[in-house]
């Protein structure tokens, strides 16, 4: 059950960033295509090429009929969802950085206490946000506000805040439990780079440095 939740969280945020990237890429390509088709129409007209003119004109009409103006808005909302759930995933993998010089230097009970306080802070904050967020979403739902381009109900978009925070709160509780029972803290390695082993092997084989 928990493994399923972990997996779902990972798939969701990876999908969101991928979809947003493709979407913005397509909208840029689309804008270029319109410009190109318009140029082609102009060129054909200037050179009296009737058949090319007709083809270009219909291409232009087809592309122009596709409206991509909603892409920016959609991208923002995709990233809002990614940010909230990604933050929860980040708690699990220990990506959230803090000022840990004091905690690193303490030992035994003092360290245990200060880390417990730090993690409880995370639990407390995300719990407050879940509460405020739920309240806010409820009011937006009653207000019936919709987004300008997509005309989606805003409360569905804003649902990311209470849902993401609730998940994040759960992740902080998990992390606290893990720390209190085993003393382990998840730590993200910010200097991690893939493919270095292969390079070291290349070097050993006499490859160029």
């Amino acid at each position: 059950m928990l493994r399923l939740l972990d997996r779902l969280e990972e798939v969701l945020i990876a999908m969101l960033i991928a979809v947003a990237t493709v979407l913005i890429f397509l909208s840029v390509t689309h804008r270029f295509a319109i410009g190109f088709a318009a140029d082609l129409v102009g060129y054909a007209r200037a050179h009296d090429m009737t058949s090319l003119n007709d083809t270009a004109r219909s291409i232009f009409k087809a592309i122009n009929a596709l409206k991509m103006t909603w892409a920016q808005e959609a991208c923002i909302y995709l990233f809002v969802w990614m940010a909230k759930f990604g933050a929860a995933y980040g708690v699990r993998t220990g990506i959230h950085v803090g000022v840990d010089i004091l905690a690193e230097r303490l030992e035994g009970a003092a360290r245990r206490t200060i880390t417990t306080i730090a993690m409880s802070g995370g639990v407390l904050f995300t719990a407050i946000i879940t509460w405020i967020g739920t309240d806010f979403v409820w009011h937006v739902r009653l207000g019936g506000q919709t987004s300008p381009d997509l005309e989606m109900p805003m409360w569905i978009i804003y649902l990311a805040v209470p849902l993401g925070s609730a998940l994040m709160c759960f992740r902080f509780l998990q992390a606290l439990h893990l720390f209190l029972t085993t003393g382990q803290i998840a730590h993200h390695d910010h200097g991690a780079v893939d493919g270095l082993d292969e390079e070291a092997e290349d070097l050993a084989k006499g490859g160029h440095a």
Partner: protein
Amino acid sequence: MTALIIFLILALLLITGMPVSIALGLTVFTFLFGFSDVPMDSIALKLFTGIEKFEIMAIPFFILAGNFLTHGGVARRMIRFASSMVGHWYGGLGLASVFSCALFAAISGSSPATVMAVGSILLPAMVKQGYPSQFGVGTITSSGGLGILIPPSIVMVMYAVATSGMVVKGPDGADVLSASIGDLFIAGVVPGLVLASMLAVTTIWRAWKGNYPRQNRAPLSDRWTAFRESVWGLMLIVIIMGGIYGGIFTPTEAAAVSAVYAFVVAVWVYKDIKLRDVPKVLLNSAAMSAMLLYIITNAVMFAFILTSEQIPQALSEWIVSLGLGKVGFLLVVNALLLMIGMVMEPSAIVLIMAPILYPVAMALGVDPVHFGIMLVVNMEIGLCTPPVGLNLYVASSLSRLGLTEVTRSTWPWLLTMLLFLALVTYVPAVTLVLPQMLGM
């Protein structure tokens, strides 16, 4: 007084080691419940709308583009290109590592990852050729920081985000327009090149003094092959800068296009990444971006509290009344940022400090773009100073030298960087010459 309470709460929370984003958020709530009558609803709104700006979305795209190309294979190509070009000069591989770092950092955007990638390939090679490992560690630790100065730079986006929409007045009482992402990127080019050259000069001087080995001059054909291999990665910067400057894309669009380009290059041109590894890259980038966006959300709330308590304005009036002048103020800012840079991560510092310092700087007549680049240089130095310089940690684990030893090896380059900071701070032309020439 209010300012003191807010910063005391923040400092107390931060010292426990909790994530910076959480500490910022809790500070806001503690202050709201305990000391203020700002309505809760206005804060809740910030919570939702804090990151709803298309410019901010450049961050996840740039991170994704960088992650596709943050790979040992790309580092090797950059190293090969750099060492074929400059390896035969004094400094040999040391000089090559400065330029490899500059190239790789510009693509990858992460300083610690640059130190890791370039260091793990070049350090062993340098030791094998008879360089003392202190020399290699010094060059790579310091030049790994070039990434946040050479565009595309996440820290610059953070500065643009933190200051955009702030209504501040210059010394003549007129409103000052905040710096755009495009302005900052273009402005970062010349300082980036100047710093790379200054680090190179230091490297050459150290190598000449120690009489370290040099490479044989690479034949032209080798240089051409190395260039052709690395050019695919380097095109990323061309696309971004050309696109933004040419007015073809907004910075966010440029970032998205560069992410797609990086994906194509990594999977089909360089073949460093297999298609089945792509979800992992996506996941890592999403997590990293989410962490930064989370800090932004909470920093926006924090800045909102500061503004509604009129703290930046009060601070600004106080500092102007002190009569420090531009010179004195910038000196104080540098000292303050270098100190904070020793214990905190760049993006968080910029998000917290920029809204406070920016109005003062503008009131004293500092150019917003110049001020931004100066902050970035400070952050760069912070990455190489103990006790919490990420670059130092990575270099230490790579070279198996202790943290103190790594710091000691880095000092000639660190001094160079401080000299460069003074140059950037007091000669605005270094920063502003290119944007002005391009008419931005």
